[in-house]
């Protein structure tokens, strides 16, 4: 029942010139307004702020080129800019390589319990980069990190590893993003029909040659997309390079932006100008990506269940490969989690591990009074944002992929634009845009919700796009002919058939929201403090170990969300 359906190609043609109903164009218009407002308002204020000498609404303020000149015209920021690029590219490529390898091992090799391994290897994505950085400082700090202490007891000299370095930054970010790459790549790897590979093998291709000339080229668009997205996310991350980089004199543009926004005297206009620089970089990255994937734009869809590619038997290599996976899991997941948990019971990290010093104080402080409300806020934001974003993303994806309403191309660009906007930059824009918001919106938890919707809708749209393409348009048409209007069809036909994708998008967005720091730190108020902000502030307030405790709590919440979504996903057959 596999193979490339001729019918699908015909269907693609049909999309051009298909009639669209008034309801569809109305929906598209509404979505355009919503997404447009979410994205363009902060962006507009940001560009405006970059051209001003003081924050908006300051009396006696005027226009100036000085900020832009400082960023683009002087060499002051050449080094941080290059460092930022270097981090982005290294992490993008590193994660892609890891992702391909892991995806290949999981889908193609005959390892024991591949389903379990897939779940385990996904774990690092559930910890925020900040949490991972914290954990690795406990593990890999020179002289006193746990690993270095072990090294010392084994008789080693000096430090075996130091996480406070460029490679440390790249390592931590790769650990976090490699699972994302793996997830994105397993799906296409699985769906390459066995027959395509068998055809090559029959013609005499070895497995390695096959991988190089057939498998990887077919994965090219997915690989490019991973490099671009992961590279962008890594480059705009401010927490990890700030935490791990200052000692080695590593500064990045997001780190500079953070300086200008959080320390006195602050310079938000300069920060806005630097934000435009990051914007330009990511937008050009998107263009490069679209250009490269346009060339490999052959549209191949598979109908029915593709014949599963039989796994390569490993024989004597089985335990070696499994051991390798276990080692990778230990380094990237088990050790950091252990370090976080252990560290959360310590008052501070000293030169010796003193078990007498173990204390519950960090947790007591973490769960008292105001801090406790942060837990409810974070949970509320995660659940509600994920639900709203998934719904919105579903509607947007439907309009873009399933209808021929004019204006859907614009909707596509608008919803993807935030990926070019770093979190802090979005935060600055939003502060300026929404401080005048009526009905007490400003300072409430709903501002954070709006920020998250702008920031993360692209992930929902992306996740659902792929799934929507698999659902035949005729399912929708059949309901239409029987008289079902658009919302009924969405609810009764399309949504159930894409439920798996909706759920995985839900959990992904929920976790992104839970971990979100860079925009939150500028937009939170006493009524909306979140766990991620508490974690970061703890680094200022009670010391790093308190931050460990918050991280552990955050990790537990993530685990609950993931478990809930797995249960629901098990019940959904589509």
């Amino acid at each position, binding site marked *: 029942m596999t193979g490339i359906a001729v019918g699908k190609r015909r269907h693609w043609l049909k999309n051009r010139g298909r009639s669209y109903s008034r309801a569809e164009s109305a929906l598209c218009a509404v979505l355009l307004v919503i997404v447009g407002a979410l994205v363009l308002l902060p962006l507009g204020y940001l560009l405006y702020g970059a051209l001003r000498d003081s*924050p*908006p*609404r*300051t009396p006696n303020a005027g226009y100036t080129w000085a900020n832009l000149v400082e960023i683009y015209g002087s060499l002051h920021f050449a080094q941080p800019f290059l460092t930022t690029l270097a981090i982005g590219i290294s992490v993008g490529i590193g994660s892609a390589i890891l992702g391909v390898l892991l995806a290949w091992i999981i889908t193609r090799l005959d390892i024991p319990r591949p389903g379990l391994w897939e779940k385990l290897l996904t774990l690092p994505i559930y910890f925020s980069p900040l949490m991972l950085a914290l954990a690795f400082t406990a593990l890999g*700090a020179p*002289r*006193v990190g746990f690993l270095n202490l072990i090294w010392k007891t084994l008789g080693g000299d000096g430090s075996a590893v130091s996480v406070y370095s460029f490679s440390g930054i790249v390592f931590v970010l790769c650990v976090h993003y490699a699972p994302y790459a793996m997830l994105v790549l397993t799906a296409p790897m699985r769906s390459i029909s066995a027959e395509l590979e068998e055809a090559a093998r029959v013609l005499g291709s070895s497995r390695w040659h096959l991988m190089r000339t057939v498998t990887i080229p077919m994965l090219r668009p997915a690989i490019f997309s991973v490099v671009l997205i992961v590279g962008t996310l890594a480059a705009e991350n401010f927490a990890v390079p*700030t*935490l791990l980089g*200052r*000692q080695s*004199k590593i500064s990045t543009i997001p*780190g500079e932006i953070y*300086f*200008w*926004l959080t*320390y*006195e*005297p*602050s310079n*938000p206009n300069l920060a806005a100008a630097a934000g435009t620089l990051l914007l330009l970089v990511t937008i050009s990255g998107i263009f490069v990506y679209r250009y490269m994937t346009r060339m490999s734009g052959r549209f191949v869809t598979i109908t029915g269940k593709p014949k599963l590619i039989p796994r390569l038997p490993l024989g004597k290599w089985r335990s070696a490969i499994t051991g390798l996976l276990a080692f990778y899991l230990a380094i990237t997941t088990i050790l950091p989690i252990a370090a976080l948990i252990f560290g959360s019971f310590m*008052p*501070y*990290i*000293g*030169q010796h591990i003193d078990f007498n*010093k173990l204390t519950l104080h960090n947790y007591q402080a973490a769960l008292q*009074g*105001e801090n406790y409300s942060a837990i*409810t*806020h974070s949970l*509320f934001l995660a*659940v*509600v944002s994920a*639900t709203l974003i998934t719904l919105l993303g579903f509607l947007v994806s439907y309009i873009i992929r399933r209808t021929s309403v004019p204006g859907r191309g614009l909707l596509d660009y608008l919803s993807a634009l935030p990926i070019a906007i770093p979190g802090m930059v979005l935060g600055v824009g939003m*502060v*300026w845009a929404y*401080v*005048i*918001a009526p009905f007490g919106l*400003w300072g409430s938890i709903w501002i954070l919700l709006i920020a998250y919707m702008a920031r993360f809708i692209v992930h929902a749209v992306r996740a659902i796009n792929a799934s929507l393409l698999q659902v035949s348009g005729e399912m929708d048409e059949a309901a239409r002919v029987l008289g079902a209007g658009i919302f009924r069809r969405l609810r*009764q*036909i399309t949504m*159930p058939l894409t*439920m798996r994708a909706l759920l995985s998008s839900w959990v992904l967005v929920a976790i992104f929201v839970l971990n979100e720091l860079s925009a939150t*730190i500028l937009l*939170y108020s*006493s*009524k909306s403090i979140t766990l991620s902000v508490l974690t970061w*502030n703890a*680094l*200022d*307030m*009670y*010391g*790093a170990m308190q931050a460990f405790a918050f991280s552990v709590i955050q990790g537990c919440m993530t685990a609950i969300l993931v478990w809930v979504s797995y249960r*629901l996903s098990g*019940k*959904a*057959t589509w």
Partner: protein
Amino acid sequence: MKRCNNTRIPRALHFLKGIAIASALFAMQQPASAASADVATAWKNAQKLIPGISKETVDAACSEGSAMMYSLILRGEQEGIIGHFEKLFPCIKLKVFNASGGVLSQRFTNEMRAGNSPTDIWMNSSPVYGSRLAKEGLLLNWTPPTASLIDDLWKDEGYWYAIGLAHIGIIWNTEDIKPEQKKWLEGVKTWADVPNGPFQNNTGLVDIRAGGTTQIFYYYNKQKYGVDYWKKLATLKPTIFSGVNPLIGRLVAGDFAYAAGITADTAGATQWLKGAPLQWKFPEPGLAVPYFIGISAKAPHPNAAKLFMAWSLSTDGQNSWVNSSGLAPASSHATDNRPYAKKAWYKLPKTHYRADWQKIATDLKADTQTFTSIFGK
């Protein structure tokens, strides 16, 4: 006939759950009404602790019922200040928004200029910024009855008043120093001695951009001893940190043994209180940055704010601020009960350097470039 969906995801339930939580959170924000017993207690305590405060102010404060403070991140603020104040004046619920300096100022000014700020009391540690906002009209002009308790150096009369001082000093890891280093440390008297420390490759410094508390250290020494001072510091090959807290963390971990230009009473003491092996010292003349509060010109609860301000400057208030946040007293009338202040090795400086905050601010850009060229980026 059963309708489609055999998936059992109750999407509506998610929504309802969210709405339920939202309503609960909203409900929790409603201010409580003042009970008359609480008002009586408040007045009793006000009379006792805040000489000169009028009954009208206290009554008005009680009927306002709450106040919002935008505060820097301080150690024991929740119990020592908020809790204590609410116990003294039970008719007022004190809410606080904590953030670091830049975020706090930006938030305050953005909101005020947009006409939409919930702030009653605003805290900051940059005198030049505080006075600028006062001039712009963002701070309320009011002199508390207890204003005279604060020394001249630490206030802008009518606008903002210090509730504590962050002294700058040198700090070291007691477990990590050798006897000759210890001897040298004991001999340090003035800032001129500081770069001569026998701590090659064993020193930490904070980046000049990390706020007023670091700027004053670099500025004073450059002004007094010239740029050579910085160059001498650089010969120690120090590790430069983006903030004082990461530095303290690494100091405690034993990455290096000695650091200069540090707000030891806040950052260092936090770790000391947990048992970290630290000691610190304040060379002469004393360099200090005031942590001050002012009242918002458009405060929604001006009288509650006034009460809080007046109390903060009173002896009782000063004692509370000092002992819970760990800042040094800004008033000679306060009693210093901080645990480390009682230690033999702890001495507050005798003299104070009178800083020209405006000049420090204007020189900052050039100083940053000099700093970068000397210490590297």
